[in-house]
């Protein structure tokens, strides 16, 4: 009797240890490699090895130019318009000095300084937000997009401390009353989770370009950074571009033609 109990305990503890190790090992590999989708893709889906965006900042002059993109995004993703310091932003505009904090000159072209610039998630190649997330609620897809699972997020906001671009927003209160017009094709979020731009991954799957790109034809370009023949690569070759905070080594996927 005594022996059998000891044997049972041995087997039980070994299996618990084994299970723990397996879970842990799974954690490492899962986090290290990009997530492979297990579903069947739409035949129309747009594909790339590394999605990237090139914003031609010279083309954005009036408030309407910016608003067209911002409103398209807000509607597509049910982004609430919450006033004050707890606002939710996926794509927004700000001054040069707030966008390119590391490339400011005291004296520079007035035209460039007066211009406003879009900010959104950079979908970094080495995303700190993915690195710090304790539940893999934020993860990198095979195509380079940094995606989020709103149903797994525990709302610890570690990713917000980790993101050096301020691209993430937290639902401090229930966002639903602040959504102007609900788009039934995209889920709304609930209280207590983090959210951010998803490079319109849901639209790419249907063969459509991101909402902001569609709303600003010829002004924002979207394509495969790994393909030398792609439009974005050609634009990068022909124009002088900036990225935000390149010194941090996150390798942002959003480029700005200045």
């Amino acid at each position, binding site marked *: 009797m005594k022996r059998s109990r000891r044997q049972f305990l041995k087997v039980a503890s070994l299996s618990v240890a084994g299970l723990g190790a397996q879970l842990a090992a799974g954690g490492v590999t899962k986090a290290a490699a990009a997530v492979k989708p297990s579903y069947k893709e739409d035949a129309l889906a747009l594909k790339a090895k590394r999605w990237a965006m090139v914003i031609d900042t010279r083309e954005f002059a009036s408030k309407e130019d910016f608003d067209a993109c911002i409103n398209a995004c807000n509607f597509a993703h049910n982004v609430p318009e919450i006033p004050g310091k707890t606002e939710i932003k996926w794509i927004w505009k700000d001054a040069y000095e707030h*966008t390119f904090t590391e490339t400011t000159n005291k004296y520079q072209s007035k035209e460039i300084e007066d211009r406003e610039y879009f900010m959104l998630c950079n979908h970094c190649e080495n995303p700190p937000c993915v690195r710090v997330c304790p539940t*893999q609620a934020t993860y990198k897809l095979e195509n380079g997009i940094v995606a989020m699972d709103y149903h797994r997020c525990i709302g*610890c906001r570690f990713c917000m401390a980790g993101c*050096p671009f301020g691209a993430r927003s937290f639902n401090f209160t229930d966002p639903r009353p602040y959504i102007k017009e609900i788009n039934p094709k995209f889920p709304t979020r609930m209280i207590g989770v983090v959210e951010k731009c998803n490079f319109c991954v849901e639209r790419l799957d249907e063969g459509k370009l991101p909402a902001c790109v569609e709303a600003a034809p010829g002004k924002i370009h979207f394509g495969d950074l790994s393909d030398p023949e792609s439009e974005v690569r050609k634009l990068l070759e022909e124009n002088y571009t900036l990225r935000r905070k390149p010194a941090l080594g996150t390798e942002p996927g959003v480029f700005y033609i200045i």
Partner: protein
Amino acid sequence: MLEKVLKGSPKYYMWLAFLGGIIGIGAITYLFQLQYGLGLTGMNRDVTWGFYIAQFTYLVGIAASAVMLVLPAYFHGYKQFKKIIIFGEFMAIGAVIMCMLFIVVDMGMPQRMLNVMLHPTLNSVMFYDMMVLIGYLCLNAIIGWKTLECERFQIAPPQWVKYLIYTSVIWAFSIHTVTAFLSQGLPGRHYWLTAVLAARFLASAFCAGPALLLLLLMVVKKIAKFEIGKEAIKTLTIIITYAMCLNVFLFLCEVFTAFYSNIPGHMHPLHYLFAGTEQGLPWVTYWMWIGAVLAIASLVLLIPTSLRENMKILPWALGMLVLATWIDKGLGLIIGGFAPSPFETWATYAPTVPELLISLGIFGVGAFVVSILWKIAIDVKKEAGTL
């Protein structure tokens, strides 16, 4: 030994009832927060951690500080500490429980908390933090309980407890290092991005923790009528003094690096905390200066031996030290990390009343746990004649 909890004086029950009231207020406020969201706090899009995480950071240090009693006693055979070790270990239990509660109330989705274990993520420091905190809680509970039990029956603790104690020494260092790694590995948060942060955390913990312990012991010895031991107090205050000197030194290293290098990113947070902005002085500037003055004053009272050994001055010096480190490593550290924002703007934050009430409730839980555990320890030790 648990029966000791139930046998106490009316004052003891009144104290527990008082704590129960505080816990109740905190709990009710928390229900509101659960319903309304973290919008009830002063946190915002640019300052995403606040009073809760600040308390968490500070209390991990308090928990880890038990090692300053355990290490001399078990690694160097210093017998004077053996009498009070149990109080350090039991205080650590209270502190770790408070840490966990502060993490829980800070979560937007506390009901999904177990996701951290269901999807273990080895590249996230938070995963390790959860593991080491749970581990440290278990270690202290097992070690504390077993050694006290052995003291009660007047037998030597079994050998395996010793191995656990050695583990707990290393574990204590690890819990605070991991807590520092939560912040110091983040790109773009200049105030935290420094290799010396973990060392600063440890130094600040090893002065603040023993100081708080000694203060509490001074109060409790009057109520329960026992002696801490002059030799023990002397040695512990020397440890506290050295650790505080190291803490201040490491902070000054930060100041030098920031201002001599003249790199704006490194200077901004310190400038914000101590000199405000072009728009004026935020409340935190006054707060930080209070901390700085208290830190210096505590050292002035602790460094000269004649003052340090004066039992009338000592509580004041310790109190100032605890406050100074609480200001520096609590809100100061958190606010400094978020100012300036990723857009080089001055993000502001101040805790709200509900936030403070919830925090008070958690402190109440900690005090409740420590009161009960210390009551057991004192009663058992008195019966065994070891106090």
